[in-house]
């Protein structure tokens, strides 16, 4: 499967012309997806103004992890790592289809196969989109776009695998484990002095659980649409057989079959558009909110450290021992905490704006698509289905 010249649906603004990134191309071999990462830049820090490199999913993970594990970025929302390309579902269905081939008519089988290929393509599209968005989030971030590893990721024309292995040995992924075991209790438990963060904390925790729920429900809806589309395929095939065998139905056979083929196409498109515009949107922001929560966690940790350093200083004063070290430690903790708070505030505020813009864009596009699909199938008499199929480009 090769995807050429894909226009992605970005949930982010990519206005900064000094660094433009896209994934115009991707190649799918078995399970491995090779993304072509294309960069156009006016920045002198890069060797060339226009270049492309091949990258795998694991390279993205490496990049994300190095960013997360960088102390300096503790006060930033690190864009969520794109999920692994998952072709499991269509692959399983393809397998089942192969097993059931004998029980279907040739046409039925062909249509089902086409549907599955479309599903493969949809998964492919999604994964390209989400990897692209990840890079674009980085390129449009004032601080992250300057990251050295980011530049390496974009530019390094050799295989990154060797570098990745080294990095793993260096960090050992220990901070990641810390973040992963983020205790929500810790976040909600601290005594918040800042109103802004108090509100954000409440909001994000609540919103996260709700958007997680909406994502799951949207997925179920999409699955139902797909099931109905599949049913239409089988029904149309059976009607076709019926009309072929039976003289009384023969004169209207093609008509029935094309009606249901048409319905199936519409249903299938509704399903996939809903997936891309709605479900993907919810899924993405669910992950983004998790990234925002991670920021809150890091800040909470910094606050705990600061409070602990205060206690240590008091203890030192009490014992009249090691006071300068304790004072220094306390000062550093405070600095760190203040830096995180300042940076965090900026990040969370721009996050709000970003979220609202993305929702607006996708909801509009989804509504427009739904209208388009319904209009196509609507003012028409059933007898016109036959011509309609050609018009609708099937």
């Amino acid at each position, binding site marked *: 499967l090769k995807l050429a010249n894909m226009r992605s649906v970005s949930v982010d603004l990519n206005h900064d012309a000094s660094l433009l990134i896209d994934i115009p191309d991707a190649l799918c071999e078995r399970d491995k997806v090779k993304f072509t990462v294309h960069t156009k830049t006016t920045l002198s820090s890069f060797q060339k103004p226009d270049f492309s490199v091949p990258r795998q999913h694991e390279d993205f993970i490496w990049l994300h992890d190095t960013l997360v594990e960088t102390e300096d970025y503790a006060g930033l929302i690190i864009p969520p790592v794109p999920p692994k390309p998952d072709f499991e579902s269509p692959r399983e269905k393809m397998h089942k289809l192969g097993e059931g081939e004998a029980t279907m008519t040739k046409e039925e089988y062909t249509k089902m196969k086409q549907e599955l290929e479309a599903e493969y393509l949809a998964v492919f599209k999604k994964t390209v989109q989400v990897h692209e968005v990840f890079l674009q989030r980085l390129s449009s971030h004032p601080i992250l776009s300057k990251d050295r590893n980011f530049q390496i990721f974009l530019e390094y024309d050799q295989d990154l695998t060797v570098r990745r292995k080294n990095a793993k040995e260096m960090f050992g992924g220990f901070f990641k484990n810390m973040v992963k075991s983020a205790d929500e209790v810790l976040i909600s438990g601290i005594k918040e002095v800042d109103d802004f963060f108090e509100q954000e904390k409440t*909001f994000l925790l*609540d*919103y996260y659980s*709700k*958007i997680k*729920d*909406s994502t799951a*429900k*949207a997925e*179920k*809806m999409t*699955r*139902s*649409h797909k*099931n*109905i589309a599949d*049913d*239409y395929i*089988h*029904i149309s095939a*059976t*009607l076709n*057989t*019926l009309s072929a*065998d*039976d*003289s*009384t*139905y023969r004169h*209207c056979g093609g008509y*029935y079959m094309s*009606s249901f083929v048409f*319905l199936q196409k519409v249903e299938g498109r509704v399903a996939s558009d809903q997936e891309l515009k709605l479900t993907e949107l919810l899924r993405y922001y669910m992950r983004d909110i998790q990234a925002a929560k991670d920021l809150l966690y890091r800040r909470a940790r910094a606050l705990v450290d600061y409070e602990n350093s205060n206690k240590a200083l008091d203890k030192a004063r009490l014992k009249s021992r090691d006071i300068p070290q304790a004072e220094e430690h306390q000062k550093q903790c405070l600095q760190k905490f203040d830096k995180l708070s300042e940076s965090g505030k900026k990040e969370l505020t721009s996050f*709000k704006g970003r*979220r*609202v813009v993305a*929702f*607006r864009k996708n*909801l*509009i596009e989804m*509504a*427009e698509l*739904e*209208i388009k699909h*319904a*209009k196509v*199938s*609507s*003012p*028409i008499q*059933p*007898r016109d*289905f036959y011509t309609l199929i050609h018009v609708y480009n099937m």
Partner: protein
Amino acid sequence: QNSNFKENEVLSVTLSVQYLFQLDDDEEEEEEEEEEQEDKFDISISVKDPEKIGTNDMNAFQTPLPMFRNKTFTVRRRFSDFLGLYEKLSEKHGPNGFIVPPPPEKSILGMTKVKVGKEDSSSADFVERRRAALERYLQRIVHHPSLLQDPDVREFLEREELPRAVGTQALSGAGFLKMINKATDAVSKMTIKMNESDVWFEEKLQEVESADQQFRKLHVLVESLVVHRKELSLNTASFAKSTAMLGSAEDNTALSRALSQLAEVEDKMEQLHQDQATNDTFNFAELIADYIRLLGSVRGSFDHRMKAWQRWQDAQAALQKKRETEAKLLWANKPDKLQLVKEEIAEWEVKVTQYERDFDRVTATVRKEVVRFDKEKARNFKREIINYLECLLQSQQQLIKYWEAFLPEAKAIA
């Protein structure tokens, strides 16, 4: 009082149902609970404006049918009454090669009933399905020119109180299904290898059997569509709720409002999907089920013809045997026995002639019936599918309105 019912008058039947929840005293209880309570149906019968229907070359029945012209009248019937009517008609007319329309049974083709999580919609569904099926059943009967003349049919339509049919207790519910299945099985399992001289019958039977197969397949698929449609409806409702919650959690005012509006649109979609599931059921699934039952009756008529053929062949074989016996007795010189055999031969000769005539008559009837069935089927099936598709399209139009109303809300997000 007695007015003649002209052949070109159209009799129309509509059925409403009154569901009685009390048990009748002498009613034998069947295993499943659905059959404990017998539906009582109010049948309204009216003679519509005279329409010219196609003439057929059936022998005109002399018995005038007393119908009240331009009046509507109502009788009440139990579900078992319908089954009793079918039993009588199929006994009388089946062997003559008529395709007797069958009523619905309790569990259609052993399909698992679609159970929805909502309160009583499942049983309301069931009642309506049954009512509509019985109505179609009666419509088919009264549109059959020969069956309409049957006195049992008239009695069913007119008589104030029908005597409880003897032995129909066994016919309600599972018992009925068993009877139908046994009858069809017994007939299908007949190893009658008929020397088919008429290619038309051979081809037709093939068509019927293949159509039966496809319709059964179709029924499974459409039932699956209904299930998925109902699932879509439920999932949409649950998504709507979830979106509403998300909207209330959203702190941007315009986005919050847009999300609530989205939730409302999805709520309306849920209703659309529900209605669509109803369309799937009543304008598609139920009709397929009807055809499967009808095809069963068509098969039955073919089988009755084969039975008639077999009876004729058996008579010929018996006659042959008697002639052989006669020959033997001539040799053995037993005058008394010989006389007996000669009488028997005469009897069998009469029977053979009779049975041959019967077979020819049944053949002609089956042929006419199948041609009629084909015509009706071709006309109705197309109309029914178009009807179904038009409902679907109406849904789509409604969809547009909902999304068009939502679009400005989405655009208003700032």
